[in-house]
């Protein structure tokens, strides 16, 4: 890690350990955490599933399932959880609970023996983000239904829970979370920008600890369910924050740290096309979502909501082509220009393409945060209604069932979205030049090679600014 300061202000290596506070460490080491939070979350999802099933084909705006999942959860995820707390959602996600229980045979206690199920290893050539990339893209094909039809949300969530269980029967540990879950991929990508991390505290302690209980497990907890090696964590990408390593480490050497956002972007480890494409897909989806959900073009809404089969198939074709081919294609051209501008003939174009793709992570997250603001500010008031009447049965649990639809700060929405985009654009630039220096060995080459990528980032940001503010 370079000893540099981000924006000339904050040391990139700065970190502050939150688990040095006794209460936090006690919570993290307790077997009841995150189990209790997870079970509570499961009960919320039971209500979501129930509301989705009961709600059927009714309007989504008065449905607990639709509102909690697509307004509250999605916005919490993009606005708070991922940017600040990395993959904290995975910590409390109830989807793999059933397969965990089946494999271990125990809900709370530790099973130090053989786990149940086939415990197969995931195919080597699929140990990447590609399944998640395609899975998430395909899921967005149905976005026009999820947000307006409760039953569609029920089917989606029910399918994910079922799939998590089936994969848990066949494959080892959290294979589903690591390589399949649609929600996992983008969290992994953007958690590289998160302002927190789980890492060892002292590298030397881990080196001297021969047994590696964080990986193998012991009587205090399971070996990393995410099949990682916590003793040498370098990136947030695949850490599901299950906290087992806190419980299994006999030296209390794991810590939860606040850090400079985006630090992982500079870690040159396991960078690949899968993560690069994830960045393109997320940007492409954000653009399509904005156009179809928040834009003024009714014809696009009709296409996404399958008013006609031809329109719907056109949407799928354009959406897929844009995210999988057009975005990466344009980026490839700029990568090629970068290599040309650098005049470096040694660095492979593939490395240029992959390394610079990580500059899209901050701006991509910014785009999604801006999009989330466009969801929560106009529609957030519906949540007050549905928490009082979750099944649209006429309940009034908290006295807010008749709270009218009240958009909040929508007059400021464009400014907030614009400011968000510019802030995250600046982060992309700050990390982009450092990535350029990692890519090209010579400083002058790095400077020249950076210019086309700066143009691309500026172009992307201007496009989204035009969309959000125009």
């Amino acid at each position: 890690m370079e000893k540099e300061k981000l924006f000339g202000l904050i040391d990139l290596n700065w970190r502050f350990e939150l688990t040095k506070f006794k209460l936090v460490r006690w919570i993290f080491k307790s077997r009841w955490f995150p189990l209790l939070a997870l079970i509570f979350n499961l009960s919320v999802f039971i209500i979501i599933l129930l509301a989705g099933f009961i709600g059927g084909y009714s309007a989504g705006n008065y449905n607990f399932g639709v509102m909690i999942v697509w307004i509250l959860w999605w916005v919490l995820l993009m606005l708070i959880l991922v940017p600040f707390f990395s993959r904290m959602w995975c910590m409390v996600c109830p989807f793999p609970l059933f397969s965990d229980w089946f494999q271990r045979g125990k809900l709370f206690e530790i099973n130090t023996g053989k786990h149940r199920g086939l415990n197969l290893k995931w195919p080597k050539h699929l140990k990447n983000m590609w399944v998640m990339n395609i899975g998430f893209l395909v899921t967005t094909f149905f976005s026009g239904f999820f947000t307006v039809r409760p039953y569609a949300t029920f089917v989606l969530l029910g399918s994910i829970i079922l799939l998590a269980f089936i994969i848990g029967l066949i494959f080892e540990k959290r294979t589903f979370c690591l390589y399949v879950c649609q929600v996992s991929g983008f969290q992994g990508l953007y958690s590289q920008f998160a302002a927190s991390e789980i890492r060892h505290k002292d590298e030397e302690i881990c080196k001297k600890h021969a047994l590696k209980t964080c990986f193998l497990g012991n009587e205090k907890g399971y070996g990393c369910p995410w099949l990682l090696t916590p003793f040498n964590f370098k990136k947030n990408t695949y850490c599901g924050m299950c906290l087992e390593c806190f419980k299994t480490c006999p030296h209390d050497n794991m810590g939860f740290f606040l850090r400079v956002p985006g630090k992982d972007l500079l870690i040159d480890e396991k960078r690949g096309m899968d993560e690069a494409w994830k960045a393109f897909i997320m940007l492409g989806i954000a653009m399509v979502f904005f156009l179809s959900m928040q834009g003024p073009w009714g014809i696009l809404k009709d296409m996404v909501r399958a008013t006609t089969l031809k329109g719907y198939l056109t949407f799928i074709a354009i959406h897929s082509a844009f995210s999988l081919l057009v975005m990466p294609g344009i980026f490839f051209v700029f990568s090629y220009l970068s290599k040309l501008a650098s005049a470096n003939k040694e660095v492979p174009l593939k490395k240029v393409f992959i390394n610079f793709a990580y500059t899209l992570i901050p701006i991509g997250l910014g785009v999604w945060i801006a999009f989330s603001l466009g969801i929560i500010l106009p529609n957030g008031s519906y949540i007050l209604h549905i928490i009082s009447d979750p099944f649209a049965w006429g309940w009034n649990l908290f006295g807010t069932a008749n709270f009218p639809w009240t958009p909040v700060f929508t007059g400021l929405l464009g400014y907030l979205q614009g400011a968000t985009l510019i802030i995250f654009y600046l982060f992309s630039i700050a990390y982009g030049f450092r990535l350029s220096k990692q890519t090209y060995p010579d400083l002058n080459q790095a400077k020249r090679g950076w210019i086309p990528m700066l143009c691309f980032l500026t172009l992307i940001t201007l496009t989204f600014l035009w969309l959000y503010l125009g």
Partner: protein
Amino acid sequence: MKKQEFIAIIIFLFATIGVVVGVFAIEKYRLSKFYTVELIARAPEHGNWYPAKIKVPSGKEATILIRNIETVTHGFAIPDLNVSAGEIKAGEVKVVRFTPQKKGIFPFMCTVWCSDYHMEMRGELIVE
């Protein structure tokens, strides 16, 4: 099985089966305690009023819970008894209370143009 494992399983069961059973138990109690009948509003091509015939006793207050489970606005009125719920927006729930004094069969209907078959969105209130 150790005590903590047992407690965890109890909490799990409460959070899953307990929630489902609790929700339906509360709703069943609420409907029987506070409402005479629950009426579902759907356009004729999607099933029409359900139930299409409702019975209420004469001289006693009737409380009808009307749920619009569709994506279009409906309305509810019993013109002969001067009862109206006004507009019931998509997903909305409304309650009408009235005390029918005369026995007979009275039509109720949707009062908002909701579909091409709107005029067929009718049912019968039987006052016994």
